């Protein structure tokens, strides 16, 4: 509908332009005032025989006077002469037909092409919009997946960190307990070693004192008695490699 109105408006515009262009020359090509006067004079002389006769006849003179005034009367700025209308209308029809035959299909094709291009652009825009929406959806889905994965990774990392912290704490506690146990064992070992050393030292001192006392108290009779007793023991016992 809009396309038809546009087409009619275009045709009328072209026809008006052609009419206005043709009317000017037609009007400019009309008879002059002098010619008109001469023609009226000739017409009056033929009608009444002479200009004096016209002048004598008041009615004829009045009519002749109106005709002359008609010659000097300016043409209508709106209504052209009839021949101009005919020629203009003919030119309009020719031009209109030519335009209907050649111009209108070209304009129609151009308009159709333009419409098709606009439609194609709109379709492309729709397609691009759909693609953009699909891409946006995919992006949002990927973003959601990424957020989910990130949350899972964070949770896993947090869990691993907690586990690692618990392991380290347990290991540290175990190390502390082991060190305490070891320290206690070392202390106990050192205490026992000190007691053993003290006991050995005391024994050495006691035995040393005993040796000195025994050595000082062993005279020749005691030595002889010890040797004789030894010989008697050897004679009275078997040789088992561990005599006393």
């Amino acid at each position: 509908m809009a396309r038809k109105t546009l087409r009619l408006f275009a045709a009328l515009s072209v026809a008006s332009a052609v009419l206005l262009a043709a009317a000017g020359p037609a009007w400019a090509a009309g008879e002059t005032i002098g010619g008109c006067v001469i023609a009226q004079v000739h017409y009056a002389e033929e009608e009444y025989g002479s200009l004096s006769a016209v002048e004598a006849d008041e009615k004829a003179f009045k009519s002749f006077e109106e005709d002359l005034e008609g010659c000097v009367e300016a043409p209508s700025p709106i209504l052209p002469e009839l021949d101009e209308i005919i020629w203009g209308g003919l030119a309009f029809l020719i031009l209109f037909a030519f335009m209907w035959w050649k111009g209108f299909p070209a304009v129609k094709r151009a308009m159709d092409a333009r419409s098709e291009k606009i439609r194609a652009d709109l379709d492309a825009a729709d397609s691009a919009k759909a693609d953009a929406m699909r891409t946006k959806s995919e992006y949002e889905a990927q973003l959601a997946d990424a957020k989910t994965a990130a949350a899972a990774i964070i949770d896993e990392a947090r869990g691993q960190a907690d586990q690692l912290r618990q392991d380290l704490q347990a290991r540290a506690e175990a190390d502390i307990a082991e060190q305490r146990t070891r320290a206690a064992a070392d202390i106990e070992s050192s205490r026992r070693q000190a007691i053993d050393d003290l006991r050995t030292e005391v024994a050495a001192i006691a035995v040393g004192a005993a040796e000195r006392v025994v050595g000082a108290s062993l005279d020749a009779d005691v030595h002889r008695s010890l040797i004789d007793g030894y010989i008697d023991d050897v004679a009275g016992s078997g040789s088992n490699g561990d005599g006393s």
Partner: protein
Amino acid sequence: MADQPVSDRIGGYADAVLAVARAEGAQAEVESELARFAEALRSSDELQSTLADSVIDVERRLQITEDLLGGKALPATAALVSLVVGAGRGGELVEIIDAAIDRAAAGRNRRVARVRSAVELTGEQRSRLVEAIKASAGLDVEIQAIVDPSVVGGVVTEIGDDVIDGSVRSRLQQMRSGLG
């Protein structure tokens, strides 16, 4: 020259010492003097280390043995000790002498009983001890008496690897072990 096993080397030197002693016709005296010299070495770690020290010149070590044995022992005894020390075996001299005495006794179908005591055994005590060992172990032994003050009192008898310890020292050690 490859080193021989220590036991083979000591046995070889012991056989040589015995052969020289027999050749000199004074085996018993040489054995006795060697036994006393071995006893002197056992009682002096400094003397043992000096004769075994390869850093000290051999002439110096031989001079020491000459100073110890010269005029106090048979020339054969001194020569045998010098032979071993001059060969650089001063550190094994005690073992060589013991091996020679053991082999000499074995040649007489006897074994050597090394008897350590704080005081010297009398002849009667030696005889009784020989009889006592024969009665208890069924062995004919020769007594090699060693005076060792570290025994304190009593006697320690070694026959090969067998030890019959009746010393005061061992009893004091037992007491030390009991206290420690």
